[in-house]
């Protein structure tokens, strides 16, 4: 025992010279990509380690507001009230993603209208062979199986994006359930994180859930095509996500919703995902490392996005991000220039 203590202090001593550890927490939506990014970035930048915990966007916002982490991550932009609680917070979009509607136990190629989707999640459609689903999918053999809704149990940006969409297409959803990172679900199972919901959908026959595209495709879940604002049925993909972002003009603080976007090829539940950090970085070394990483992620890092089913940022957005990154300050100087 005594030796163990001595050993741990020895290691603790030597660890003081270890690389800078930058802690982040938040969205599970971009976690597969972030985890890849931090791994790749570490190979060429050995002096900085990024520890990212995917605890959900709600957690990301709470922890960056409480300053228990160096950066947060969220797919839902912070509300005005949340920003007021965290003065000086910035949103940096890193990539675009799609929220896929996934199901278990039915043939591939299911088509859903916004109304049917809302009715399913409101608990008004309880069986897969309901006439409202059969009408949209002529010729598909629909089983007499109960629909088991799977949703998030934690505060989630994916939920915020999904309910934002449902709120736009269904007034009943808007009044009964509402829009937010955590809502009062009328029916269903709760899973923790995109990981948890994907796990539920994968293991439960008759399940219907919503997860980030990367989780759906990596786990080979069947995804529904949704009827978009122009009346076309569109499946989630990188191309249909980029199409949704094409017509959008970003405000200076990047906070924007691109759900139910116009355009024939647009997937209706797409979103930017953000890293949240303070404009004035208290710790100079961490501030510089973080800013440099964000520059790398929004430039070189974008190449990695495609293979992992995230859509890269449009060029116009990247140039706006560059401007924003230049405004991050450490000790009164630009974090990028200070290097």
């Amino acid at each position, binding site marked *: 025992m005594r030796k163990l203590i001595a050993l741990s202090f020895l290691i603790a001593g030597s660890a003081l010279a270890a690389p800078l550890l930058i802690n982040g927490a938040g969205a599970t939506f971009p976690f597969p990509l972030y985890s890849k990014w931090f791994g790749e970035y570490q190979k060429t930048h050995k002096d900085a380690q990024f520890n990212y915990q995917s605890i959900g966007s*709600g957690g990301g916002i709470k*922890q960056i507001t409480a300053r228990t982490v160096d950066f947060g991550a969220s797919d839902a932009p912070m509300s005005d009230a949340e920003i007021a609680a965290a003065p000086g917070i910035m949103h940096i979009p890193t990539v675009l993603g799609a929220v896929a509607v996934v199901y278990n136990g039915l043939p591939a190629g299911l088509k859903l209208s916004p109304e049917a989707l809302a009715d399913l999640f409101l608990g008004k459609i309880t069986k897969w062979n309901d006439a409202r689903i059969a009408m949209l999918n002529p010729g598909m053999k629909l089983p007499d199986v109960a629909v088991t809704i799977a949703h998030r*149990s*934690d505060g989630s940006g994916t939920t915020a994006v999904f309910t934002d969409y449902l709120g736009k297409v269904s007034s009943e959803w808007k009044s009964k359930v509402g829009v937010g990172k955590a809502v009062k679900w009328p029916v269903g*199972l709760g899973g923790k994180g995109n990981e948890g919901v994907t796990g539920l959908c994968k*293991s*439960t*026959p008759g399940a219907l859930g919503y997860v980030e595209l990367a989780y759906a495709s990596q786990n080979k879940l069947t995804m529904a095509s949704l009827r978009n604002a122009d009346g076309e049925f569109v499946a989630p993909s990188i191309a249909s996500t980029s199409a949704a972002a094409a017509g959008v003009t970003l405000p200076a603080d990047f906070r924007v919703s691109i759900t139910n976007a116009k355009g024939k090829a647009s997937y209706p539940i797409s979103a930017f995902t953000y890293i949240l950090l303070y404009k004035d970085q208290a710790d100079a070394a961490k501030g510089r490392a973080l800013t440099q990483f964000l520059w790398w992620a929004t430039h070189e890092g974008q190449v990695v996005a495609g293979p992992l089913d995230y859509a890269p940022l449009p060029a116009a957005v990247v140039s706006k991000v560059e401007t924003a990154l230049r405004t991050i300050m450490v000790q009164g100087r630009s974090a990028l220039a200070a290097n």
Partner: protein
Amino acid sequence: MLLPQTDRRHIGDRVFGIVLPVLGCALLAVALIIFFACAKLALPAIEKLGVLRLLTGSDWNPVEESFGALPFIYGTLVTSLVGIVLALPISVGLALFLTEMAPRQVRVVVAMLVQILAGIPSVVYGLWGLMVLVPLLRSTVEPALGRWLGFLPLFRGPPIGLGYLAAGIILAIMILPTIASVTVEVLRTMPQALREGALALGATPWEAIRLVVLPYARRGIFGAAILGLGRALGETMAVTMVIGNQPEIHASLFSPGYTLPSVIANEFAEATGAVHTGALAALALALFLVSLTLSGAARVLIRSRRLR
């Protein structure tokens, strides 16, 4: 030469006489710290919503900052009751087997195995529950229960696997060692002469148990069950992994639900705003007070048996 030594002895004893009670009081302080740390975090929610609304409201809606814990209290009670109902007969049977029937060697082995059962970490039970129990419930047990006992509202609805029943079964397995070992202790305190008297009067071993042993141990077993209940109420990880996480009240045991500890585990790290955090801390505070009460009551019951 003598004087300074007695002096030193006095000083040493006096220091000791201060340090030891301080260490004892530190333990009391730990209890107070737990209470006040929770209470401080809980205050914003208690101020905004009031204790009554927090405990009896059935609406848990972070968007509108409306927090009522009834679905969690219900889920906690239902899963714990299922756990006790399943665990109690099995533990008492196990305890009777260990004290009244088994030969020495068997007793030692079984007692050791029960010890191992008690030592398995909660998260491993959860892993097993998620990978083994839930699929089993979904594919076999719940459809069968629905077919045979479906006339009861308890066993209706689609077999999902995750839910009250899964959590209850996991809890039963987890509290079984607690109830069994306390029952064994209670049975051991019983004078051998009573048992032998019954046997000498021509009672079969079972009659000796039914007429002498069980009546003697009744209060102790009740205490053991309450101790098990206390453990079940606070169990977090294994339940969180199989309960289904839905803050609703359902009559059917097949339905997904939620418990007090699981909602804290899932939401505490991400609760935005002092009211949401406060509501969760209030639940923790309630859990703390309930577990103190139950455990205190159980001790009194178990001990009163011993003194009589």
